[in-house]
């Protein structure tokens, strides 16, 4: 603990934050649009988005199921079991959907992106690109950043839809809440822009952060097997912490 608070440690933590910000700024500055980039970005959307679908859908379904199970039983003691869809939808749209999707995404796709770029660095592929006058920042980093920005909001929506399905399965099919009451209560309680929109904004921010952390740790890792392993670990840790921290900040801002 005392070692962690040593001025050198704090200094290096601030420095690595600064490096990450500078890295993002450089990546954004060199951003160019061309047909090739659209194709490459779509390919990355496939690798990090489509390949994450199974875990996102499974996790979403069970999160919805268990959240409904817990809140329905508690609410039912006060005779308010019908309001379960309000708790479910607000919790999902505003907090759980974006946060859990981003953290799952970091574990599923962020690690593979970090390891891929780290391995490219270890096998000197990035230098080879540079020698061929291809900017690796533009060729490798930019499509992955954009793909995260596109994929995470969409994955969040799929996560939310699956979680609502889980809620419907438990509340409507198993517990016999009327289906019109279930949806009607939700529609009355959830504002399109205030509640639903803020979740979409959060998901986009988290998507950028998750892919940013992945490419940054891959890009800056030590070009050894150990360095790549460390980079994947750090990607998950950094994404989880920054997403949870940003979630609080964004919630406070949009309240």
């Amino acid at each position, binding site marked *: 603990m005392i070692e962690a608070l040593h001025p050198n440690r704090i200094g290096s933590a601030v420095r690595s934050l600064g490096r990450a910000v500078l890295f993002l700024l450089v990546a954004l500055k060199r951003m160019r649009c061309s047909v090739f980039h659209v*194709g490459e970005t*779509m*390919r990355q*959307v*496939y690798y990090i*988005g*489509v390949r994450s*679908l199974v875990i996102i859908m499974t996790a979403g379904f069970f999160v919805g199921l268990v959240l409904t199970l817990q809140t329905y039983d508690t609410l039912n003691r006060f005779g308010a079991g019908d309001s379960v869809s309000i708790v479910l*939808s607000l919790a999902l*749209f505003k907090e759980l959907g974006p946060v859990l999707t981003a953290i799952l995404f970091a574990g599923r796709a962020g690690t593979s992106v970090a390891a891929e770029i780290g391995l490219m660095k270890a096998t000197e592929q990035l230098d080879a690109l540079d020698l061929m006058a291809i900017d690796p920042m533009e060729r490798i980093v930019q499509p992955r950043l954009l793909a995260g920005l*596109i*994929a995470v*909001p*969409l*994955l969040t*929506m*799929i996560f*939310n*839809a699956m979680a*609502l399905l889980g809620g419907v399965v438990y509340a409507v099919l198993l517990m016999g809440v009327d289906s019109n009451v279930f*949806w009607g209560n*939700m*529609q*009355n*309680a*959830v*504002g*399109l*822009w205030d*509640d*639903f929109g803020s979740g*979409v904004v959060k998901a986009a921010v988290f998507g950028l952060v998750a892919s940013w952390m992945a490419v940054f740790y891959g890009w800056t890792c030590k070009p050894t097997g150990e360095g790549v392993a460390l980079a994947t670990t750090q990607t998950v840790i950094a994404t989880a912490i920054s997403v949870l921290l940003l979630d609080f900040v964004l919630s406070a801002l949009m309240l």
Partner: protein
Amino acid sequence: MKSSNQVEFAAGLFLILGLAALLFLALQATDTEGFQRQDTYRVEAMFTNIGGLKPRATVSMAGVKVGTVDSIHLDPATLEARVVMKIYEQFDDLPDDSSAAILTSGILGDQYVGLEPGGSPDPLTDGDRILITNSAVVLEQLIGRYLFNTDGEE
């Protein structure tokens, strides 16, 4: 390794699936008034106390939703609350001597504005003011009055 065509097809399909989920949630799970540009006209009413009434609360007549509360301000001259309501255009034949009351749905429910029809042949139109109003019942004041009364009797 999959061919480039298949990858692009899967990515496109994923985009469509994600956007479909977005649309489904936005339409099915939210208060879609953000979308519907239903034509409305404005009516205002002055209340001495609005209790916990908030913008976007329901305005109903005979239990049917006929509009929403648009804005609430304190009138600087009379120090009363000026509640501006948006009434849907389809309800354009409400009598202009209708009265408005702030009611609560259930004991702990949301507060809403209930309109009580009058008998006038002229309809309410844009910019009209509802003259007969009934303020919100504030539970604390009721309890306070009740306690005060029993104290006086003893």
